[in-house]
């Protein structure tokens, strides 16, 4: 049987909101005044009413939604793919052609959103009808399905053939035009529900979601659920909120500041590696380089977090702190980070090492925090866990951020780096834009040995990034 896992019968419509939206579009397209221009289409000798051309469909969509023709064509193609519009002349493939090809709107009886379980029996009857009507009308995959079905429901095969013959006989009573239309409608329905191999199945939705909502219905109505909601609301009401204007202004300044640093918005020099096939940009911005670029050094001034996240920036800052004899602050912060994100098994040893190095009275790199925080921290060390040093870490972080960091930005060291990092020149325009550079491969981070020292000055990425 062709593609797609079987859908459970009676799947709620709410889970496929796009179908309802498509239906609304299709209904408005059939509006006598505002809809697509309908005309009667001549097919050989029969005249089919209420047909539309592909071109009209695309133009109507483009006008209605104020989009480009390309997008309107795509939207129309999606409507056809879901069986809401079907081609009259070549009903084998659900494709929208933006020309004079005639199309019609599918009857609501066959709409995809009805989500009728397209049963094997129905499919068998349909294929049998096609087979009886005209020998050789079945395409390869249809023939295969037919044979498979024959084997599977051989006990009901008489019923299938009888139904098929009956339906064909009843159809003969109708006018030729109606017969043709109904045949197209049915064909479209089956193309959607039993797509040919290789075509995407529009009905496939992935693994079932919310299979637990049934049990949760009971849970949500319990007193516990409401108690939790009330507690959450009380906490939320007590929270301080910031005015929208302040928050939104913050976005403007953030985007404005970072815009020139965003390769997709402002491009990057010398060139975007993905576009030019040249990885010079990555080489120049490797985690540790001799000469950091100007943009990069600028970023260190945006926020303390940016500075620490960049391994080079952090190394420079460490040097600066060393000159001020406060390097232990940064080392302590790094040790705390390691505790927070390290392995559970390492927690006791790490805590002990930190205590010995930074917190014990007379420690080699004793950090200067206020007595209350120190007391609380030492108390907490009795039961070490990942977050036991959070208070002390925050204290030291704030100290560095408010005190050492601004001084670093004003220092000669930083100013010097900024001045040295010249602005990059754009790569010369290539005369022959089609010459392809061979793309250099880079060694995988997984090949490099991982750093061993736990409190080394390297960042969490281990400084393993490569060009």
């Amino acid at each position, binding site marked *: 049987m062709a593609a797609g896992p079987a859908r459970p019968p009676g799947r709620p419509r709410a889970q496929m909101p796009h179908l309802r939206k498509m239906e609304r579009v299709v209904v408005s397209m059939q509006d006598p005044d505002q809809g697509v221009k309908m005309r009667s289409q001549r097919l050989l000798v029969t005249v089919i009413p209420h047909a539309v051309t592909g071109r009209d469909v695309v133009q109507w969509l483009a006008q209605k939604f104020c989009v480009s023709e390309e997008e309107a064509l795509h939207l129309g193609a999606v409507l056809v793919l879901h069986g809401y519009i079907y081609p009259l002349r070549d009903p084998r493939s659900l494709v929208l052609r933006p020309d004079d090809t005639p199309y019609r709107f599918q009857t609501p009886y066959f709409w995809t959103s009805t989500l009728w379980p397209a049963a094997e029996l129905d499919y068998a009857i349909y294929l049998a009808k096609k087979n009886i009507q005209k020998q050789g009308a079945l395409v390869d995959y249809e023939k295969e399905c037919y044979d498979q079905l024959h084997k599977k429901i051989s006990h009901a095969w008489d019923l299938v053939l009888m139904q098929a013959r009956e339906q064909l006989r009843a159809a003969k009573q109708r006018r030729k035009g109606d017969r043709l239309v109904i045949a197209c409608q049915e064909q479209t329905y089956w193309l959607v529900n039993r797509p040919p191999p290789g075509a995407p199945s529009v009905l496939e939705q992935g693994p079932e*979601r919310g299979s637990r909502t049934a049990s949760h219905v009971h849970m949500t109505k319990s007193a516990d659920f409401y108690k939790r909601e009330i507690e*959450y*609301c009380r906490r939320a009401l007590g929270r301080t909120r910031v005015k929208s204007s302040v928050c939104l202004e913050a976005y403007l300044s*953030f985007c404005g500041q970072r*815009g020139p640093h965003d390769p997709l918005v402002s491009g990057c020099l010398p060139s975007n590696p993905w576009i030019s096939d040249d990885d010079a940009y990555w080489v120049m911005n490797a985690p540790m380089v001799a000469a950091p670029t100007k943009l990069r050094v600028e970023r260190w001034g945006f926020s303390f977090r940016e500075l620490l996240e960049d391994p080079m920036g952090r190394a420079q800052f460490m040097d600066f702190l060393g000159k001020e004899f406060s390097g232990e602050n940064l080392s302590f912060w790094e040790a705390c980070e390691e505790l927070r994100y390290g392995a559970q098994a390492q927690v006791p040893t790490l805590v002990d090492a930190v205590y010995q190095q930074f917190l014990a009275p007379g420690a080699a790199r004793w950090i200067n925090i206020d007595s209350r925080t120190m007391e609380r921290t030492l108390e907490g060390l009795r039961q070490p866990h990942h977050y036991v040093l959070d208070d002390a870490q925050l204290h030291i972080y704030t100290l560095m951020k408010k005190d050492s960091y601004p001084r670093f930005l004003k220092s000669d060291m930083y100013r010097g780096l900024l001045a040295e990092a010249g602005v990059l020149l754009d790569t010369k325009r290539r005369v022959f834009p089609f010459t392809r550079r061979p793309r250099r491969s880079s060694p995988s981070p997984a090949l490099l040995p*991982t750093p061993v020292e736990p409190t080394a000055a390297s960042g969490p990425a281990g400084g393993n990034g490569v060009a």
Partner: protein
Amino acid sequence: MCDQTFLVNVFGSCDKCFKQRALRPVFKKSQQLSYCSTCAEIMATEGLRENETLASLKSEAESLKGKLEEERAKLHDVELHQVAERVEALGQFVMKTRRTLKGHGNKVLCMDWCKDKRRIVSSSQDGKVIVWDSFTTNKEHAVTMPCTWVMACAYAPSGCAIACGGLDNKCSVYPLTFDKNENMAAKKKSVAMHTNYLSACSFTNSDMQILTASGDGTCALWDVESGQLLQSFHGHGADVLCLDLAPSETGNTFVSGGCDKKAMVWDMRSGQCVQAFETHESDINSVRYYPSGDAFASGSDDATCRLYDLRADREVAIYSKESIIFGASSVDFSLSGRLLFAGYNDYTINVWDVLKGSRVSILFGHENRVSTLRVSPDGTAFCSGSWDHTLRVWA
């Protein structure tokens, strides 16, 4: 002749007061007990009280929620697009597919970038997880999971391991090895155990901790080495579909989105839900923090993407268009946060101007729904994975 009702009188000790009385059968939470008539009456009135309490709790919760909405609205003095009027409009965007990665035999469900800005890991429906150097399009590693629909995969910060999971309800970590003699599957470590499918996973700042989201309605933080559960996060009323860690200085929170239409922000330390937002009309498929950490975007089946501000505690922008009918499956910001890339189930990718709220560009190319989308760590490109078995890198 009168009706004869037969009443069976059982004498014994009441299950509640233990006195010797005539007993009646009584059903409490589908368990049959025998109570004396006094206790049975007491139980009947107790039940009534319980119902009353439930109703009053419900109305209290509703009124508090209403008050909360009022408070939120009080501080909402301006809309984002109004503030953004004075920002320069973005120029014409020409983004093209720069690399197409072919090699998966089935739908690509998830992908993640390595910190080296060029390697990616991707997972698909047939259980294959592949590590590529997407710059050269070479495949570097491949492993086949023992389950189908591998819906989550993540690259470790060090670049030395990957994590993945799906319908097997687990999250497994594979160390990456180039040793020809070693079978990657042999060193596999099973870390997380959920009671339903794994929908998302992410390493925290190191290789040693993993955060997972599952169809069982919970998120959880695990220690990789021991597989120990460090913290679990309960509160979603349905499947959790996505999560993202906050890029904040203190690095303590993450946001998750689920089928209950809620996006919830959690404190990793305590397991508490810190903030919750419920304005979407359908399942939330993807959440991603704004680069400053003060806001996050979400993409949902209701065909909209929304921006929620954490300090203002409300939704501040909706990115939608009448012509966009299909749900957004995956969203991500560009480096500066000015652009929002969203992959949709109608095979397209829409690029939104975050500040102005308008759509900047629409990208065609995929032949089936876009299931995953991530911007590279240095913002030079973004990669999209689709049900058409391919991944594309755009720039």
